[in-house]
């Protein structure tokens, strides 16, 4: 049911599927004492995606950015957990749509800076809890080295 991938085809994700993925991210647990403590930004315009993936080893046609509220400008662990739960929803839903997902919970600093910049989100109010790379999975070629010896 979970299809993690690190390589994606350069094929766009259909809008209908994207809407379902987006909806799946709205149903993560969060403390009842506050409204949903997050903002999901879906980067899908090819120019913006190109700008962003320059700073990451994973390249996918769509990128979900899971921003969560800071608590009085400090990291809120509960909200970070909610953001990661949203990313799991995304991964599970993506697999059901024959898509694959890669979740990064500690992306490189340059990537994070660029994500805040293009999403126009305030760093004093939000943390980037997780990033979801989504697309159709490409066949992954792994280099496997081991010795083969035939005798007889």
């Amino acid at each position: 049911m979970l299809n993690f991938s690190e390589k994606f085809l350069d094929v766009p994700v259909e809008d209908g599927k994207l809407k379902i993925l987006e909806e799946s991210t709205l149903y993560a647990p969060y403390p009842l004492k506050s409204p949903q403590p997050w903002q999901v930004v879906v980067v899908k315009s090819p120019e913006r995606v190109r700008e962003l993936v320059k700073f990451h080893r994973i390249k996918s046609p769509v990128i979900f950015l899971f921003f969560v509220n800071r608590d009085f400008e400090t990291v809120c662990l509960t909200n970070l957990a909610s953001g990661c739960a949203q990313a799991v929803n995304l991964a599970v839903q993506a697999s059901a749509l024959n898509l694959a997902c890669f979740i990064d919970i500690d992306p490189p600093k340059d990537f994070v800076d660029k994500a805040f910049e293009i999403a126009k989100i305030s760093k004093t109010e939000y943390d980037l809890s997780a990033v979801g790379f989504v697309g159709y999975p490409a066949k992954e070629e792994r280099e496997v080295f081991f010795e083969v010896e035939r005798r007889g």
Partner: protein
Amino acid sequence: MVLDFIKQRRTIRKYKRGLIPSEEALEEILSAVRLIYAQYPIPFKLYIVSGRTRLELVPIMRQHYSIFIDLAIIGKAVSEEVRPIFEKLMVEFMKDLGGAPITLIGLTKLYDWKEEKWPDWAIRNWKVSWMIAQAIMLYAKKNGLDTGSFTFASASIEEKILEFLGERDLNIAFVLNLGYGDENPIPKDVEWKVVEI
């Protein structure tokens, strides 16, 4: 269909007594844990507590009403009209923590709760643990089961639970009840907080 069980997953605080989840369902839930853990290896241990052990653990968990304090905070956030129902449910919940047949306890290495700034490794462990918790909750729902997480407002209770489990090096990341729900929580209002760029 997948979206349905993602949407239907709610925190359940009352469980049908005597209805035990099947080994097959448990195994599928554990397969979800393995999938996440394989992607994000961290120090992690999952306790599946049931039967007599759960009965012994419940009095430790509900000491000093630490869970009640957390529930009371949540209670303040519910509307006036449903508050009496919520309060009744809280009192019931406190008797034996919802009467769930199974309680899952996820352990990892964390940092000091009193500290505002956690090191990167501890935040990573925390995040992965909650990815695991969410995967458990979704796979449980997929198998017709319900879950509900609860937290402690007391570090000393956490220490006592760890002592009970015989754990010295790890901390509690999450506690989840697992079983067949015996309540229908009100639907959650969700706001479409998604923007495309």
